[in-house]
């Protein structure tokens, strides 16, 4: 039942880029072909599962007959049900039923804070968006977008636990009172890495406990402090940086250092808002040295693939040339010719851009790399006022580490510990520290957390933490701007306590715990404390009101610091020397996970279901191995083969039967059995294992192990992946050397990989150009720009003819709105492929999660599909851009291996592109998908009968089918979806509260897809109409004399944002009214040379267009000729 296959014209000779999504496709197996040509992944359209097979056609007819017969008896639907309107008893001020209110708040993060604007409907927060007024506005990432779900999560901790069992609040209060009264308590406080001024002020007051000690712990915070000094950090201003060097620092992804908007603005040759003529000299250049692909590596103009332990050598080589050779005399010089040339080119570029560059060391890297990065930055004069880097001292000084804490417990200097860190030390502390043993020695441990995780169960007391949208607090942003954390709602559960409330309870004389609402009339104690802190910065009611309105206090900054090279530099550098990994002594890299971070988000369904940006794996983690290493270890064939052979039930090599082989990784004397995946662009002899998974398993686990720690996680987090924390040591917590890996025969683990779901095919899907002429006949930057529109089939396909008439019977245009014509453009030059838009869309549009099993079958509901391609220059080219044939062998000459093993990473988000000539519309038998006069391809859900013809006919594969009632029946409960009306419908008491009231919650059998956030558009248009009336009435004229023109009814330029556009930290998505023309950023983006339509040659006239990616390589680099050519063809 495969679909008609598009027969593409011959590929022109100058298209030499080889692109692929997965190892299976690269190997080009017949199974992959079949997969590609299907409308839906195998199984997505059928009931193949044993449990599903219960409903055969026969039994279905029987049931239908019975229901029709029974329908006559009830006729309940004929009678109107009695519904009630329940207004407020005392209507609160500012609340208008049905209208959202927006408040400034902020989400505390390890690197500072993410300033937010929170949408709230009748006091119910439903969505977060970045606060663009904030000087440190940084957009939002997937974590910030998904944080709202945690507030309503059914698996959220709701009740107090005493030694892991439900306990009475009165007993906890007694325990707190006892501590509060004991001035000589040997008490320790363990904080997170965020910087809250009020908490730091209270820290001073907590010295009432004369023996109090303070520590800071987050699992993945890194060792930068060793190089920079206590509490000192370097904050980058990317807008001032012409050259950026990332030494394994994923600063646009999980290794946040501060706002990155400046970086992305300078990835667009036309500048912010496409205001200028394209000028490559305004672009920045990013060099990235890393072991495995990160989002930053994907953005890099030049990327060097090297084992994580060897990054120090590259740093040393740069320092040798730019800073001081004396510093790195102990480190061996580079031997690899390619690496030497690479560093030479980089050093020359940095020297030419003194004082205008940034060298960043990744948090995973040992202190030595941080020392070297600081030395290079100092030598280049990059640090200081008006320079790209500023050094500051944060408020988090004088805090001990977790090793100090352990020592203090062992030395009996502490017998009471208050844990406020968002990390989970009993699960994620380095294994050799054996923190659990020391933890048991504590007399009292009080854990405050949102999850009942390992630490919560081990502690003598666990207190459920209030969500940041439920508590008063404050925080300092990257550059130290005082930012308020404002609650949107009282804690949903009575016992939820915020960090400040707990500290204030301990500070009070009686130790009385007051949380949420205080007694009648009195404000919450945390509110009073936050206000008191702010009063020291700016006094008066007006300043406070302003803080609440804007979310920040302008002019409050961190004190500058003057970092010097620390005394420990040579010792740290000596310690960082590690032999290069080999096949028998592999390197294990412990990576921050982009779905669960350090494990704290394991119970967040949106994050779990959003596929990893690089591996495209959802719901699990897996060991990632470079193809060559996998071949050397003898597991490559096994991985490719299992994608097909073991999946006999579904010949695609995908779907629910897709499994990855398990491998056994031995390192640091520990072993881990984990599923393995092939990862492209990764350094050889390394294994990347994302952390944070495997926190608890129940009977349903697919590994066949005994249930363990199931109570530590909720429905989402249970049975998720593999726990790599036990492999970590305190000495090198982010990488381990000397590992071995072997295949476990006949053991495999089902994986939900989405990389081939909705595979589009066509030529020049994602287009890329380079700013330099690289001797292959493509010309210089301007010439390449001019050719963007003519890449792929568009170079020779005949001009499009409209398949369907754009007019009605009377010859009037069908798309005829003179006020608004909506359109979008997606800039691949600044899109990095993170999942922020995808999760924001999920929050805005009530998109359900479907669970691992359903994702594996290709039934995920995300309206935005984040495609990820790898592309490489396989063949050597002559000066005309043609392949060179070897006379003797008759084969084409290939490029060196270092080119082929380092493919470009090309992300491309695809949602419905709102074709003006939409193929889906003409095949709908019930007119459920039709065009609106303002150019939207709209979906009337109530009309849809679920034939899925539209999805079949969509060349962009942008449509999704609700195969089950995902919104109503929780797909995470085993077999729940197949139980029909008998299934569990109510899980938890709050998840429905997150729903956007302005978007229909779709049911089973309904197609859905991106609507351009039509609810937001409608709201904006109606608001504009209303405003026009108010103006006329103020003018005092009768309405019959009012002048209402197109201009008065058209919404102001760029005044409406879609959810994805709003969330994007890279400003890659531009949306607006096409009729605003060049006045709007959208209008300008449509006019520039980089703009092209996806699959233009099939004549759909999409409203969403793409802007080609521009790479800005350095022509003196050895890899320059291969950069900027990753135009993706999928044929």
């Amino acid at each position, binding site marked *: 039942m495969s679909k008609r296959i598009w027969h593409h014209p011959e590929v022109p000779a100058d298209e030499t880029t080889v692109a692929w999504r997965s190892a299976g496709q690269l190997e080009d197996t017949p199974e992959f072909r079949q997969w590609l040509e299907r409308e839906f992944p195998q199984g997505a359209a059928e009931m193949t599962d044993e449990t599903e097979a219960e409903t055969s056609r026969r039994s279905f007819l029987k049931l239908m007959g019975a229901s029709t017969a029974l329908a006559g008896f009830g006729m309940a639907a004929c009678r109107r049900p009695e519904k009630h*309107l329940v*207004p407020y*008893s005392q209507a609160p001020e500012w609340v*208008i*039923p049905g209208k959202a209110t927006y408040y400034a708040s902020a989400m505390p993060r390890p690197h500072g804070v993410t300033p937010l604007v929170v949408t709230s409907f009748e006091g119910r927060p439903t969505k977060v968006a970045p606060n663009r007024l904030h000087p440190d506005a940084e957009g939002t990432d997937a974590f910030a977008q998904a944080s709202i779900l945690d507030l309503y999560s059914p698996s959220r901790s709701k009740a107090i636990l005493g030694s892991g069992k439900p306990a009475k609040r009165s007993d906890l209060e007694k325990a707190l009172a006892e501590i509060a009264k004991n001035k000589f308590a040997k008490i320790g406080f363990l904080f997170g890495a965020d910087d809250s001024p009020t908490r730091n002020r209270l820290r001073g007051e907590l010295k009432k406990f004369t023996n109090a000690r303070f520590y800071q712990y987050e699992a993945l915070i890194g060792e930068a402090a060793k190089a920079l000094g206590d509490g000192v950090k370097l904050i980058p201003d990317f807008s001032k940086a012409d050259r950026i060097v990332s030494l394994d620092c994923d600063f646009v992804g999980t290794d946040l250092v501060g706002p990155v908007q400046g970086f992305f603005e300078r990835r667009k040759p036309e500048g912010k808002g496409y205001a200028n003529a394209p000028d490559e000299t305004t672009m920045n250049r990013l060099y990235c040295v890393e072991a495995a692909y990160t989002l930053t590596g994907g953005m890099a103009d030049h990327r060097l693939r090297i084992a994580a332990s060897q990054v120090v050598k590259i740093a040393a080589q740069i320092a040798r040339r730019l800073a001081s050779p004396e510093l790195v005399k102990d480190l061996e010089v580079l031997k690899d010719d390619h690496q030497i040339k690479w560093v030479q080119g980089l050093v020359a570029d940095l020297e030419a851009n003194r004082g205008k560059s940034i060298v960043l060391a990744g948090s995973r890297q040992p202190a030595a790399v941080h020392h070297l990065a600081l030395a290079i930055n100092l030598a280049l004069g990059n640090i200081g006022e008006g320079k790209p880097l500023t050094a500051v001292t944060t408020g988090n000084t004088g805090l001990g580490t977790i090793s100090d804490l352990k020592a203090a417990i062992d030395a009996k200097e502490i017998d009471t510990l208050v844990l406020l860190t968002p990390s989970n030390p009993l699960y994620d502390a380095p294994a050799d520290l054996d923190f659990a043993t020391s933890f048991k020695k504590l007399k009292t441990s009080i854990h405050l957390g949102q999850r009942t995780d390992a630490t919560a169960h081990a502690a003598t007391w666990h207190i459920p933490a209030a969500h940041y949208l439920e508590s008063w607090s404050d925080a300092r942003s990257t550059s130290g701007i005082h930012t308020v954390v404002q609650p949107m709602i009282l804690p949903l559960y009575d016992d939820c306590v915020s960090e400040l409330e707990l500290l204030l309870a301990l500070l009070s004389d009686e130790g009385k715990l007051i949380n949420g609402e205080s007694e009648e009339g009195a404000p919450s104690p945390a509110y009073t404390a936050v206000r008191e802190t702010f009063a020291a910065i700016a006094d008066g009611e007006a300043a406070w009101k302003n803080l609440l309105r804007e979310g920040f206090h302008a002019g409050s900054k961190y004190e500058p610091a003057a970092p010097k090279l620390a005394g420990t530099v040579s010792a740290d550098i000596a310690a960082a020397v590690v032999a290069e990994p080999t096949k028998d002594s592999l390197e294990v890299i412990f990576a921050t996970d982009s779905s669960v971070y350090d494990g704290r988000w394991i119970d967040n369904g949106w994050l779990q279901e959003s596929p990893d940006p690089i591996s495209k794996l959802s719901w699990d983690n897996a060991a990632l191995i470079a193809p060559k290493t996998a071949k050397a270890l003898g597991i490559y064939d096994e991985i490719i083969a299992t994608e097909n052979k073991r999946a006999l039930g579904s010949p695609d090599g995908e779907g629910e039967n897709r499994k990855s082989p398990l491998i056994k990784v031995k390192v640091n004397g520990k072993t881990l059995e984990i599923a393995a995946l092939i990862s492209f662009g990764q350094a050889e002899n390394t294994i990347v294992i994302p952390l944070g998974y495997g926190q608890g398993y129940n009977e349903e686990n697919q590994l066949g192990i005994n249930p363990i720690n199931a109570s530590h996680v909720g429905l989402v987090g249970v049975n998720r992946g593999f726990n790599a924390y036990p492999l970590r040591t305190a000495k090198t917590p982010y990488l381990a050397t000397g590992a071995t890996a072997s295949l476990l025969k006949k053991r495999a683990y089902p994986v939900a990989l989405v990389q081939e779901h909705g595979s589009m095919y066509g030529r020049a899907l994602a287009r890329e150009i380079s700013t330099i002429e690289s001797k292959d006949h493509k010309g210089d930057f301007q010439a390449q720009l001019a050719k963007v529109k003519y890449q792929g089939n568009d170079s020779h396909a005949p001009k499009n003819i409209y398949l369907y008439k754009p007019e009605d019977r009377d010859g009037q245009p069908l798309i005829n709105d003179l006020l608004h014509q909506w359109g979008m453009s997606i800039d691949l030059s600044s899109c990095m492929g993170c999942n922020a838009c995808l999760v924001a869309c999920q929050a805005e549009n009530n998109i359900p999660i479907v669970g691992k099993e359903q994702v594996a079958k290709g039934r995920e509901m995300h309206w935005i599909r984040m495609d990820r391609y790898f592309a490489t220059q396989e063949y050597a080219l002559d000066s005309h851009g043609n392949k060179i044939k070897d006379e003797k062998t008759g084969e084409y000459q290939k490029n060196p291996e270092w080119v082929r093993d380092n493919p470009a990473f090309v992300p491309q988000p695809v949602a419905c592109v709102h074709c003006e000539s939409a193929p889906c519309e003409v095949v709908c038998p019930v007119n459920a998908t039709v065009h609106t006069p303002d150019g939207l391809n709209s979906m009337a859900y109530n009309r849809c009968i679920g034939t899925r013809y539209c999805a079949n006919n969509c060349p962009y594969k942008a449509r999704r089918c609700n195969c089950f009632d995902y919104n109503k029946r929780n797909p995470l409960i085993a077999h729940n979806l197949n139980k029909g009306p008998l299934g569990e419908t109510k899980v938890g008491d709050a998840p429905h509260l997150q729903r956007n009231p302005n978007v229909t*919650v779709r049911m089973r059998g309904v197609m859905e897809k991106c609507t351009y956030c039509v609810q937001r558009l409608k709201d904006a248009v109606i608001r504009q109409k*209303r405003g026009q009336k108010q103006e006329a009435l103020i003018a005092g004229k009768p*309405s*019959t004399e009012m002048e209402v023109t197109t201009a008065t009814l058209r919404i102001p330029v760029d005044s409406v944002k879609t959810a994805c556009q709003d969330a994007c930290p890279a400003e890659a998505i531009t949306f607006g009214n096409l009729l605003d023309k060049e006045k709007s950023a959208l209008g300008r983006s449509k006019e520039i040379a980089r703009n092209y339509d996806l699959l233009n040659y099939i004549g759909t006239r999409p409203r969403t267009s793409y802007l080609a990616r521009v790479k800005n390589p350095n022509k003196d680099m050895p890899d320059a000729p291969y950069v900027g050519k990753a135009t993706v063809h999928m044929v």
Partner: protein
Amino acid sequence: MANIFPRWTNLLPLKIAVCAGTAAGGAALALAYYATPKAQVVGYQPAQPIPFSHKIHVDQLGLDCRYCHSFVDVAGHSNVPGNNTCWNCHQHVQRESPKLQPLRDRMDATLKHPDFGKPIEWVRVHKAPDYVYFNHSAHVNRGISCQSCHGDVDQMEVVYQAESHSMGWCLECHRAPENHLRPLEEVYNFNYDAETYISNNPQLGVKTTEELGLKLKEQFNVKPKEACATCHH
């Protein structure tokens, strides 16, 4: 005389009577259950917890719609007033009325009623399905009166649904808004009469009500949409 009717027919009249009776009774019950105003769309008129009379408040006392439905012109929803809106007046007037006892129970702390502070649960009369996003403010600010959709509410002792509110009914007006457009000043005026308005405003230069509608349509630049996404998203 031979028996024309066999013996078994003796009970037939009784059987027929019983069957007919059951059928008639069933029909009567069904009619009562499904076809009375309580069960209808047009004419649905449920009893309310407090028998609030729009006739008294609007027609006799002259209250504007927006005194109670205060957000109708700024929000999609037309809100139903909270207890405090009623209490503004009724803590002073009609203090003894037994009909208002539920309100006093909820608002008068001195009564110490268990319902104190709770809202009144009004029975919903006008209900658009969940997948319809009707916006009040988009209509009342563009010259469509409350009356066009809700009927003569000012004359209703007990509110009932006056129009069908079906999609076809909506589209009827979206295709020909001139039949319902009013000057913005008259949107909340239930005594509006287009002909009187024309004779009072000769400067408009229109003679018939149709002309007035068409003039307003052009004046306000009203181009109602018929696309699905206008109401369904």
